[in-house]
């Protein structure tokens, strides 16, 4: 089978990533731009990034193999051209939005994605704190529609690289807001800070990769507020810089929950597919409950973006 050869955009961008981090550090140090770095946190994030690349090299055949298998059933062959590239980029960004939304609302996928959120910092190194286990969740199934429509898997992988590179620069506090027209259409540092925040109003918001319009279309957009500055991390922050623990802690916690004694098969299954925070006995809190509790304590915030109108 003839597979077109495209460069790996994210690998080519590595020198740019390094340079951009040095510039961000310089701006924080000498220009007093907003942002914080911590040695161990940065090291962990960068090791997670390197591990993610290695994982992709070793296990990438799983998702690419699936996409190539689907390719034989394609309805069309759109070929490789700039216009197909642009349209596929936009369609793939929509695919990313839904993957990302599932990743926050289905614990099975959250188990691989959580490590990207596991730092309490928000700087360019956080962008590189990536999953090691993404090829094992089955998320590659979401590639099927575009492949069936005739976008070659190799072209799709090439295009997705640009999406990932775009998402790098938005992981910073050094940039406050972009011009209004840009903020209206594109994902920006401000929008993505909201996504990384654990403040109740910001939970489960702004899933966009490149275009923020998806969140606005599907009702998950929440703007960043000056009066509620984002606090980064996860609801129950991890207490380790060990990359192995960062990579696997949620998988271990999830399977520990699912295999605890005394559960029905349905309850075990629910620990895998229900949102993070779900428990069979109701002793834990998910994002909906945390939002409702927040409104209970701050009634003036009821109905604001990201928060319920009333307490259920």
């Amino acid at each position: 089978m003839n597979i077109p050869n495209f460069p790996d955009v994210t690998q080519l961008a590595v020198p740019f990533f390094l340079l951009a981090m040095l510039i961000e550090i310089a701006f924080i140090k000498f220009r007093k731009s907003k942002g914080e770095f911590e040695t161990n946190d940065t090291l962990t994030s960068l090791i997670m990034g390197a591990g993610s690349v290695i994982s992709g090299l070793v296990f990438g055949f799983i998702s690419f193999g699936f996409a190539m298998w689907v390719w034989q059933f394609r309805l069309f062959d759109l070929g490789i051209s700039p216009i197909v590239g642009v349209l596929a980029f936009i369609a793939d960004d929509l695919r990313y939005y839904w993957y990302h939304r599932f990743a926050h609302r289905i614990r099975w996928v959250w188990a691989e994605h959580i490590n990207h959120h596991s730092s309490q910092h928000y700087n360019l190194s956080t962008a590189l704190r990536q999953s090691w286990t993404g090829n094992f969740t089955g998320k590659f199934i979401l590639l099927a529609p575009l492949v069936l429509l005739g976008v070659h898997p190799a072209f799709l992988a090439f295009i997705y690289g640009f999406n990932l590179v775009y998402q790098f620069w938005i992981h910073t506090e050094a940039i406050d807001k972009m011009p209004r027209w840009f903020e209206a259409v594109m994902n920006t540092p401000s929008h993505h800070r909201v996504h990384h925040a654990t403040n109740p109003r910001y939970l489960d918001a702004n899933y966009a990769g490149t275009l923020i319009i998806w969140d606005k279309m599907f009702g998950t957009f929440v703007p960043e507020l000056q009066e509620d500055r984002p606090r980064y991390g996860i609801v129950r922050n991890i207490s380790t810089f060990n990359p192995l623990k960062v990579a696997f802690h949620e998988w271990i916690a999830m399977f520990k929950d699912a295999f605890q004694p005394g559960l029905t098969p349905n309850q075990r299954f629910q620990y895998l597919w229900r949102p993070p925070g779900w428990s069979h006995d109701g002793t834990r809190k998910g994002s909906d409950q945390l939002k409702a509790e927040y409104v209970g304590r701050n009634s003036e915030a009821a109905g604001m973006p990201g928060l319920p109108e009333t307490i259920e």
Partner: protein
Amino acid sequence: MPLELFAILVPLGIALIVLVVHYSGLSKKALLRDGAHAIDLLLEDYGAEKSTGSSILTIDNRAAFIELESGDRLGLVETMGDRFVTRILNHNDLGEYAFNNDNILSVKYHDFTHPAGTYKFGNDNIVSRVADWLKNLKEEK
């Protein structure tokens, strides 16, 4: 990019960035100012909890145990780099614990990313208060 070049660039790049961060003076270590600070941090993460206002700091100001109104839970705040990690502990979270003669408490937690902690307190009275809190927590069902 050739894999060989990539394999050299990545470790060197990581080392460069980490050294720059470390020697830039940007990397700080967090400390708890006082008990009230610890309570504020805990309640920021767990807004539905209510503290009795009573907290006990370690001698190095890197951890604090916080009494909660609920009685069957205990708050814990610990530093991690320049940040803090908070926990609401119940009897299921607490493993074995022991005090030694130097007012040092060693605790094991049922927590994969925070399996154990060692805490040094100022004097015997403080230690006995922490011991009471942990004993109560352990006995809660």
